[in-house]
C-alpha cells in the first residue's frame, strides 16, 4: 500500500516537473534578423518549414507564383496576401516559442485546405513535454496497475 502512495507521489512530481518546469534549452539570441523568401504556388509553400529562434525578428517575403495566395500564422494571428507580381512582406518578432502552423488565408483552389507550412520558433517544448508525460503515463501503468489482477489470454 505504501509503495503505491510513494509511486503516485514520485510519478506526480515527475509529471508536474515535465509539464511545467521552465526548461531553458533555447539558445539565447536576441533580435537576429531572419529573412525568408517563401514562394507560394501549386498549393504549397517553398520552403514550407521555417526555423527561427525565440526573439528573432522574422521577415517573410511571400511570392505568389500562380494565383493569389495568403499566409496566416497560427498562434501569432498574423496574415498577409500576395498576388503574382506583387510580393507581400510580413514582419514580426518571434516572441512565442513553439511550432505554429502556416496556412493559406485565401481560397486559392481545390487543394487550398492542404496548403500548409510550419513556423518553428526554437525547440518544440510542447512536443517534448507531451512525449515525457506519455512516457510517465506508461511508467505509471507498469508500476501502479492493481496487483493480482488476472491477465486474461
Amino acid at each position, binding site marked *: 500500500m505504501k509503495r503505491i502512495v510513494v509511486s503516485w507521489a514520485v510519478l506526480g512530481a515527475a509529471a508536474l516537473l515535465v509539464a511545467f518546469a521552465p526548461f531553458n534549452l533555447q539558445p539565447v539570441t536576441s533580435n537576429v534578423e531572419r529573412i525568408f523568401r517563401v514562394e507560394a*504556388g501549386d498549393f504549397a509553400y517553398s520552403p514550407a518549414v521555417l526555423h527561427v529562434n525565440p526573439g528573432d525578428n522574422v521577415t517573410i517575403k511571400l*511570392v*505568389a*507564383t*500562380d*494565383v*493569389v495566395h495568403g499566409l496566416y500564422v497560427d498562434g501569432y494571428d498574423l496574415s498577409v496576401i500576395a*498576388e*503574382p*507580381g*506583387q*510580393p507581400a512582406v510580413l514582419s514580426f518578432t518571434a516572441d512565442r516559442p513553439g511550432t505554429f502552423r502556416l496556412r493559406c488565408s*485565401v*481560397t*486559392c*483552389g*481545390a487543394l*487550398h485546405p492542404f496548403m500548409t507550412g510550419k513556423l518553428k520558433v526554437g525547440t518544440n517544448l510542447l512536443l517534448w513535454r507531451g512525449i515525457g508525460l506519455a512516457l510517465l503515463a506508461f511508467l505509471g501503468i507498469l508500476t501502479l496497475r492493481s496487483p493480482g489482477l488476472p491477465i486474461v489470454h
Partner: protein
Amino acid sequence: MNEKSARILAAVFLLGGLAALGISWRLGQADAVILHARMPEAGGWTPADLTVAAGQPLRLRLTSDDVMHGFAIGQSDQPAVDVEPGKVTNLTVIFDKPGTYTFYCTRWCGPNHWRMRGAIIVTGERVEQPVTPPLYAQLGLDIDARREAQTIPAGKPSTQRSAEIFAQFLLPSAQSYLSPGYYRSRSPEQVWQDLRDDPHWVHYSDLQLWDAVAYIWQANTTPEALAEARSLYARNCAACHGESGGGDGVFIGGQVQVQGEAHGFPPGYETVLPTDFTDPRHLLAVSPAHLQGKIIRGGMGTGMPMWGVIFTEEQTWALVSYLYTFQFEEVP
C-alpha cells in the same frame, strides 16, 4: 367556441407572418442580380452580360463558386471589391452615361485570370460624341513590327547629371521638343537623332544628348502619374513583365503556347515571352504612341491582354511614361 377562434387567430398570425417574411424577402431581392464568379476555365462570370438603364441603380450580389475573385469596372473610380466563396458581397453601382462598360476580375484566380471579363450595357439616350481614335491609330503605327534601336546610350540617361544642358530647353528653338505631340510620336532614339542633327546641340556629347532625351520624357510626366502607374503596373503587369521590368515575372514558366510561326515547337505554335523593358534596344526604339497601342490593343496572339476597356487614357499614358523608368534614371 373559444378554442375555435383561438385556432383561427393562430392560423391568421402564422400565415400573416409567413407572408410578411416572403414580401420583405422579395423587396430585399428586388432587381438584385446574383453574379457568380468562377475561374475562367470554369466559365468566368455568370451572367457575363448585364443590362441597366442609365441613372438606375444596378444592384449586384456577388459570390464566388470556387476561389477568391475580385470585381471592378473598367475606366471607373469604383473601388475593387473582393468576391469570396461562401460569402455575398453586395454592391450597388449607378452609371450616368449610356454605353458598354467592362467589368473584370481583380484577383489572380488562375492562369487565365485576365480573360475573366464581362460587359455591362447601359441603355439610354445616347449623345453622339465624336470619337477620337487613339494616337497610335492616328499615326498609323504598325505596332506589331519588330523595332530595334541602332543607337543606345553608354550609360543610363539621367535628368540629374548635368544642369547645363537643360538650360538649352529654355531657348525658344528647343520648345517644340518638349511638346506632348512631339514626345508621344517619337521613340527616344528618334528624339536623340533629332537632337544630334540639330545644329544648336552640336557641342554636346552623345550621353548628354541622351540626358536631354530623358529630360523631355520627364517634362511630359509627373511624379503623381508615375506613382499611380507604379501601382497599376504592380497589380496588372508585373506578374508577366516582372517587378523590375525584366520580362521575368513569376508567370514566365507557365507561358501559354500560342498560335504563330515557330521554331522548337510543333508547327503552328510558339511561345511569346513578355517584353523585357530593361533592354534598351527594344524600349528606346518604340515611341510612347507605340506603347500606348500595345497596352490598348494587347498583344494579339501573345499572352498580352487588351487593356483599352479597362485603363483610362490618362492611366495608359501614365503607364507608358512609367515604362521608360526602366531605361531612364528615375525622378528623385
